[in-house]
Every structure is written in C-alpha cells, then in structure tokens.
C-alpha cells in the first residue's frame, strides 16, 4: 500500500520526516493569510502530537482552517488547542496586569519579555500558548522583586524572573531599559524591550534551548515579517558571536519556515547556514518535548547492563545546538563532536554535583 503514512515505518526516517512535516505545517502559519497547505489527512494525523506538544497546535489549526481537512479528527484537536489558547490568552493578560501592578506599587518597573511580547506580533493572541510570565529586572531590584512576588504566594508563582540580560543575551539591562518601548496588556502599559533587542533575545533563547521548539522559531519569523526597517546594528551589536547566533537563527526561520528575509542584506550568515544545523533542528522538532539529555534523567543509566549502555548514551547524547551554546561556541562547519563530548561530560559531572551550571 502506498501512502504518506508508509514513510513513518523506520524510526530514523520517522524522525526526519516528522521534523520536516512540522516545518511544512508551520510554514507561514503566523501570517494574516497563511499560504495554502499541500498535505493529506495522514500527514496531519502524524504531526498533530508534535504540534500540540510543542505549543504550535493553534498555528497548525490556522494552516488547515480553510482546507478540506478542517473537519478531520486531528484538525479537531488542533482547533481545541486554538480555542483553549484563545481563552488562556485572556487569563494570561489578567495575570500580567496583576504582577505589573503589584511591582509598580513598590516602584519597580521590570521589562516583560518573550511570550506575551512575541504574541503581539501575531494576528491573534491565541495563536501561541502562554506559560510563565517572563520578566527581567536590574540586579538592584531583582531580590526585592523576588521577595514581593514570593509574598504573593500562588499569585506570584507564575513569574519567571530574570536577573538582567548580560549573562545570556550579552545586553546591559540599563541600555535595554533605556531603549525600551511599551505595549498595552489588559488595562496597563507594560515596558518591553525595543523590537531589535527583543529579536536578539528571541534568537538566542531559541538556540539556548537547542532549537527544540518550532513555536519559538515562528515567533522569530513573525517578528521578521512584522517590521520593515530593522536597525541591525542595534539588534546584533558588535560581538561576532552574537552576530553569528542571531544570523543563523534568522537563516533557520527562513529556510525551515519561509520567513521573508529579503530586507536584511547585512545578514550574510542567514543565507549560509552550517550544513548540519537545519537537520539538527528538524530532529528536535520530531519530538513534542525536548529530548531527555538533561539532568536528572541524565544519569539514570544502568551501568550494570553494558548492552544497554550504548543505546542509553545515544539517547542522552547532547543536542549539537545546545552543546554549542553551552560552551558559547560559534555555529560553523566545524564538527560538533568536541562540544557534544564536553557537554556530555559536564552534564555527567553536574549530575554528580561537581560542575557548576552555566545557565
């Protein structure tokens, strides 16, 4: 029997295929009028767990909402995700509002980043899911804010606090704050990084998590198409490594999701990706969750069964993107083995409590 589902028979091919299918389903999904999707019901069925699990269910629904597949059982699940996210977007707004008001009462003004800020560039807020509220503070306010939010009990528990931007994103909080703009969330105006700073944050965040989440690349694609005149000097800064990271992520958004990058001539790296990079991302996308190469799962290895050891190590072998970011490396054609080996050893030592956590 010939059919699309026949391509998912071997595990390795299934990995490759599922990742590619996720990319195809999300191609242009953030646009007001997404492009027509050429697919079949079996493919939608096959890719639905990946879309739902990674938070891209609503975007998947958007791709098929005008197609003949809109009434299929898989489409129904995607539609349910869209409906729930639409409602949760409203709840999330209320939560953000409460947190911002609480902090404002103590004269603390943080910067809101990621989730809700990224969602503002989509045609609808319900197209992406929301988890924690990511807010960033300068070091002077970080501890005070933590104690205020901790005193709120459950109300403050949904906040993911960040102490500045320097360590991860190579940005000074004061500079980002100075360039910041505001968006309206519910009834309050919330300070957010300017477009360029936030694009940089999104790109580095995507790589830092090993590129596992297609939704994060959709955020970047939506941002790239939302603004015509991007100040690339501001976005990239002067650090060669940051330029490499951001341009590679933009290149991925273009290559895998069809983000329009014709207006960014300065980013040569975006058009010349390392050959291994896109394949590594697609392997991640084949799984609805990040692959289990992190502690505490990391060292649940059964050392008494050498026969299983090889496959267990294979399962835990570090993601090349994450390993590169772990050692603050560049994305180029050089082999990733040294990064992965180093990452594997450090994760092992960290699991034993003998190695500091980088991020």
């Amino acid at each position: 029997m010939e059919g699309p589902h026949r391509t998912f028979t071997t595990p390795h091919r299934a990995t490759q295929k599922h990742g590619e299918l996720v990319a195809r389903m999300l191609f242009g999904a953030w646009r007001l009028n997404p492009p027509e999707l050429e697919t079949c019901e079996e493919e939608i069925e096959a890719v639905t767990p990946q879309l739902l699990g990674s938070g891209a269910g609503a975007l998947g629904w958007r791709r098929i909402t005008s197609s003949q597949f809109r009434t299929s059982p898989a489409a129904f699940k995607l539609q349910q995700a869209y409906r729930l996210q639409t409602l949760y977007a409203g709840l999330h707004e209320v939560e953000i509002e409460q947190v911002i008001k609480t902090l404002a009462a103590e004269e603390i003004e943080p910067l809101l980043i990621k989730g809700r800020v990224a969602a503002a560039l989509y045609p609808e807020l319900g197209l992406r899911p929301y988890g924690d509220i990511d807010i960033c503070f300068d070091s002077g306010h970080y501890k005070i804010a933590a104690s205020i939010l901790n005193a709120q009990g459950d109300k403050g528990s949904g906040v993911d606090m960040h102490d500045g931007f320097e360590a991860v994103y190579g940005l000074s909080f004061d500079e980002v704050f100075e360039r910041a703009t505001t968006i309206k969330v519910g009834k309050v105006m919330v300070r957010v990084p300017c477009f360029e700073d936030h694009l940089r944050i999104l790109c580095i965040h995507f790589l830092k998590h090993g590129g596992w989440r297609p939704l994060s690349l959709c955020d970047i694609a939506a941002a790239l198409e939302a603004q015509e005149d991007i100040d690339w000097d501001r976005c990239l800064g002067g650090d060669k490594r940051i330029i490499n990271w951001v341009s590679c992520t933009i290149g991925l958004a273009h290559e895998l999701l069809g983000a329009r990058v014709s207006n960014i001539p300065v980013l040569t790296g975006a058009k010349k990706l390392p050959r291994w990079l896109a394949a590594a991302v697609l392997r991640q996308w084949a799984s609805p969750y990040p692959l289990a190469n992190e502690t505490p799962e990391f060292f649940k290895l059964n050392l008494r069964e050498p026969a299983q050891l090889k496959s267990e190590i294979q399962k835990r072998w570090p993601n090349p993107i994450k390993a590169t970011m772990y050692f603050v490396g560049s994305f180029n054609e050089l082999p990733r083995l040294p990064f992965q080996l180093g990452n594997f050893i450090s994760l092992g030592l960290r699991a034993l409590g003998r190695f500091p956590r980088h991020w």
Partner: protein
Amino acid sequence: MSVLKTREESVPRARRDGLLVKELPDELLVYDLFRQKAHCLNRTAALVWNQCDGETTVEQLVLLLGKESNAAVDREVVWMAFDQLSKAHLLQGRARTWPGASRISRRELIRRAGTAAAIALPIVSSIVVPDAVQAATCRPSNASCTSPAQCCSQLCNAGHCA
C-alpha cells in the same frame, strides 16, 4: 395563572460573573473561572445566551432565531439551548432540565424542518484539553498554579496542578 405563564414564557437570566468570554467569528468561547472549564457555544447557542436577560419572551427569541437562521424554528430549539446552557452552568440558578428540551430529539428537529434547521440547532460543547502539553515550562502534578496554562495537565485545581 398569568404570573406562572409569564415566568414560563420568559427566558432565564444568563450568568455573567466569573466568566471570561471571547468572541470568535463563528462561535463564542466561555471560560468558567470558578469551575475552570471551557465551553464553546455555536452561533445559535451564543445568540440564545446573549438574549438571556430574564425579560425577553421565548416567543421573541424564537422569532429572532428564525430571522438569523433564515428557517422556521421550533420553540423546542430554544428549550434545547436553555437545557445545554444550564448544564454548562451558564445560566443563573441551579442547573436544571428544561421540560421542553426532553420532549423532542435533535434528530427529530432536523427531520421536521429539513437540513436548514440543522444550522439553527444550538450546541454547547466542552473544550477538552488536547492530549499533549502546551507550555514549554509546564508544571508537574501538585505544583502550585494560578492558571491551567501553567500545568502540564492543563488543569489547575485549587491552586495546584492536577
């Protein structure tokens, strides 16, 4: 008798407190903040719910529905909507069964008025959680939560993830 008749003929009052409502082009989404349940109302159910002010008569509502769906609408359609809205706790007062709703089946209603009537039939469905987590940093069972979106299970009961 006239008082009783008036009560019977008036539509019930819709519940408005503790609900988050989002309007989409073809449906209305309602999130019950007290019960932490999400509902989806099709256009007919939404229309009925929006008219549930305790004053409009059932007859007026029947006419309105007929105009909207461009088809003859039975009173039972309205009873059916009340029944479903009540079961979803979207009407004021305790959930109850509406006498008219049980008199006739959905199939019978469709048969009686042809396929055009199917458009007018009210549907209040629960939005169930898709079988996978949504959030990147979702919380496990028993972790504290303030909204369902924070939990891997997408269910936040009494401040803790199910």
